[in-house]
């Protein structure tokens, strides 16, 4: 993975930068000791590491603004960081950059149940947002797997999704307003407690911009009343194709489950060994969850079961208790951990049209044979967001590179069948060089034009999203 060469003129001014930052931040918020900056050398894409020049931990919008203005003035790149759970290298530093961590921005600023929103500082974790409102029966809908650790700042940067977004949408559909600090320190308010901000939909543009347009310090998030109940059903099939067809039929039938999760045999086996969720051993497993009152759940599940039975399932099991529901979900939620027990793995994130599921799963299996690397599939089938996990051995020379090449081929396949490179993890550095497979030069130019407007010096989160060669002229300017 190529990264830009650190600029010596920036490295040479480290002492001056520290001195200036210490004037606007508390002394313990400027971290320069190499033994401490190493904590920020990578995110959850651990194959790539680079310690930053400095790390700063501002605690207010004003401090963020002051610090950014200094970095802007000195031409120092800044890498915003939520909790560092990005699987795409979205928070990977460069050696001449300042990591701006939002960990100290963790307050709840306002909760309003009558108007159904919560305003938080963005260092707050995803799950703790729900934690702040659940005693009133409310929740924040986007639920990425990393929700215990991941920060709202990162959720906004990557437009994170989760298992339940089939019904509730992803971050961008639940974000009502932000306080955004531009690279030059300018503070901008977008949206708020009212629906639909004035002017262009800059809120929609900021969400998913991978921290390259500004640093979001505060967010107004939509909260919803928890459903009366929820219940999953487990359905096992003897082929991926049949499971895929069943997903499509359910969606067509007019029921909208909150989640349809898909696991294939390698994933079922690993998960079962790890979490003992009681999954049937079969080729493909669907977990379908619906919500509502008991009677509403019964009615929806009856319809889903009728559809599933037409596809001759090898197993069909409705949860009969909250404990059983929890166990069914435990298996799914621990799938990544289970795979990690048996191997190193790389987690992909392409999305495909649901109709292409059988074809894509078959092609992945064929390629798995060609590359000699095993693949386990676990993904959000309802919206076509796949998460193939390619297993490799990090200690075996060349295996990581082979795995990356295989991964790239799968993502190109996703684009080829009408899908995209990433459904919820983001481009980061991981998929940066694949962007030309999805977008023509004019398409990327339009996106880079936006970066020009928000961050004319191209200092925010450098070397992400756009291939280095494509963005070189702008970065050098």
């Amino acid at each position, binding site marked *: 993975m190529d990264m830009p060469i650190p600029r010596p003129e920036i490295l040479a001014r480290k002492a001056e930068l520290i001195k200036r930052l210490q004037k606007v931040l508390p002394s313990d918020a400027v971290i320069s000791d190499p033994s401490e900056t190493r904590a920020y050398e990578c995110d959850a894409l651990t194959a790539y590491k680079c310690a930053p020049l400095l790390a700063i931990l501002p605690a207010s919008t004003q401090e963020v603004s002051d610090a950014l203005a200094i970095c802007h003035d000195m031409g120092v790149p800044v890498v915003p960081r939520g909790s560092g759970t990005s699987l795409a290298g979205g928070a990977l530093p460069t050696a001449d950059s300042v990591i701006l961590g939002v960990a100290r921005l963790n307050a709840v600023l306002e909760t309003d149940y009558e108007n159904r929103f919560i305003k938080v500082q963005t260092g707050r974790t995803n799950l703790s947002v729900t934690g702040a409102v659940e005693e009133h029966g409310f929740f924040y809908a986007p639920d990425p797997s990393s929700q215990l650790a991941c920060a709202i700042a990162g959720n906004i940067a990557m437009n994170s999704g989760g298992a339940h977004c089939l019904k509730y949408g992803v971050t961008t559909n639940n974000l009502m307003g932000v306080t955004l600090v531009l690279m030059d320190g300018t503070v*901008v308010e977008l949206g*708020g407690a*009212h*629906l639909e*901000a004035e002017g262009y939909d800059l809120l929609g543009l900021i969400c998913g911009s991978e921290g390259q347009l500004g640093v979001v310090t505060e967010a107004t998030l939509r909260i919803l*009343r928890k459903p009366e109940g929820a219940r999953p059903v487990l359905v096992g099939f003897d082929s991926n194709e049949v499971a895929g067809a069943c997903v499509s039929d359910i969606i067509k039938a007019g029921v909208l489950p909150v989640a349809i999760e898909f696991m294939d045999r390698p994933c079922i086996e690993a998960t079962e060994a790890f979490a003992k969720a009681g999954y049937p051993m079969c080729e493909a497993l669907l977990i379908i969850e619906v919500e509502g*009152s008991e009677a509403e759940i019964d009615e929806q599940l009856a319809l889903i079961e009728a559809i599933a039975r037409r596809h001759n399932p090898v197993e069909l099991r409705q949860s009969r208790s909250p404990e059983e529901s929890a166990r069914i979900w435990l298996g799914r939620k621990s799938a990544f951990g289970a795979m990690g027990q048996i191997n190193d793995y790389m987690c992909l994130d392409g999305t495909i049209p*649901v109709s292409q599921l059988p074809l894509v799963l078959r092609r992945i299996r064929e390629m798995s044979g060609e590359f000699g690397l095993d693949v386990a599939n676990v993904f959000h089938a309802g919206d076509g967001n796949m998460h193939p996990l390619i297993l490799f051995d990090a200690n075996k020379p060349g295996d990581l590179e082979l795995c990356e090449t295989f991964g790239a081929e799968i993502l190109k396949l996703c684009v080829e069948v009408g899908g995209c490179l990433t459904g919820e993890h983001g481009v980061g550095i991981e998929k940066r060089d694949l962007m030309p497979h999805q977008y023509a030069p004019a398409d990327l130019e339009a996106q880079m034009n936006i970066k020009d407007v928000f961050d004319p010096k191209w200092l925010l989160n450098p070397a992400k999203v756009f291939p280095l060669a494509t963005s070189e002229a702008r970065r050098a300017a």
Partner: protein
Amino acid sequence: MTPNTEADLAAIIAGADGPLRILGGGTRPIGAPSNCAPLSTSGLSGITLYEPGALTIVAQAGTPLAEIEAVLATEGQRLAFEPMDHRGLLGTMGTPTIGGVVAVNVSGPRRIQAGACRDFLLGVRFVDGRGTIVKNGGRVMKNVTGYDLVKLMAGSYGTLGVLTEVALKVLPCPRSIGMVRIEGLSDERAVSALAQVLGSPYEITGAAHLPKATAGTPVTMIRLEGFEASVLYRAGELKRLLAEFGDVIIDTDQDRTIDAWRQIRDVTPFHGRDGDVWRLSVKPGDAPGVVASLAGVEALYDWGGGLIWLLAPVGSGVTGRQIRRAVAERGGHALLIRGDRTEGAFPPLPAPLAALQQGLRQKFDPRQILNPGLMATGEPV
């Protein structure tokens, strides 16, 4: 000019020597009409792809909305954001197009539960102000590949580019609908009642209040959709929840319910009435206060109060300046849909926002030829 292909449209824009007025069906002339040359997308028509099992439809921008809705209906699906028809309110003729819906980010009462047009927009193709063809997004439901220009294009009124194709997520139609009504509530009480139900788990898909319904009686309306038994169950729960607000009437007549919500969607009570019409976006709880501060206006509340349709009748003396101030004091904004444009149709933006908006416009349309009079920046008064 009415090009029939995207390439022709691009050539027209690249070769244009003056400003262009971008039109779909021309049914939503919001903001200052300019005298410049009209460029219509109505020649770019047709559904490119429809996959009911993937809940996806792709259509050229000039495709009539009615054509799309009819095709979706054959599979029991719909555009869940419920785009309003502006013709009655604006007194326009013509055929609404899907491109126009997207360009204005037109949504209806279901926006509070399902989301706005922008939330259902999966991908766009457009021609920018230089004549360059650009695509963004795609046709899948989850996509975070690169910056989200899809959202940016929704509601940009054709000022950043001319849409040529849009991909939308669709949803199944419910098996059944119903509504509960309460009569006689003050605006304040009505918004309270609506907040109560919107904060319930009963998946309200419409929450409106008409201070002067037929016979001048206020009516507060709540819509439910889903399986028949589920609608009845939830209606019963709402009746209990709202007992303190008065008599709750449960109405499951399908046609009557559909008609009632179409009237809310299209702001039918203001059709054919003289006066300025404004669309206010506010925090729902602030809505009654905003309306009360503007003596002489008539209001219709949707989205639980978050959307206020205001009619300032001729002679009421209520000015755009007063309306904008009433909203600004509480947070939110006001768009003039029809009437006296002294204060500009689009809400003024704070300086840093205006600078970003102008910067984007400069990048996408350096010659400033696309709908130059629209959106806040550069809007003639």
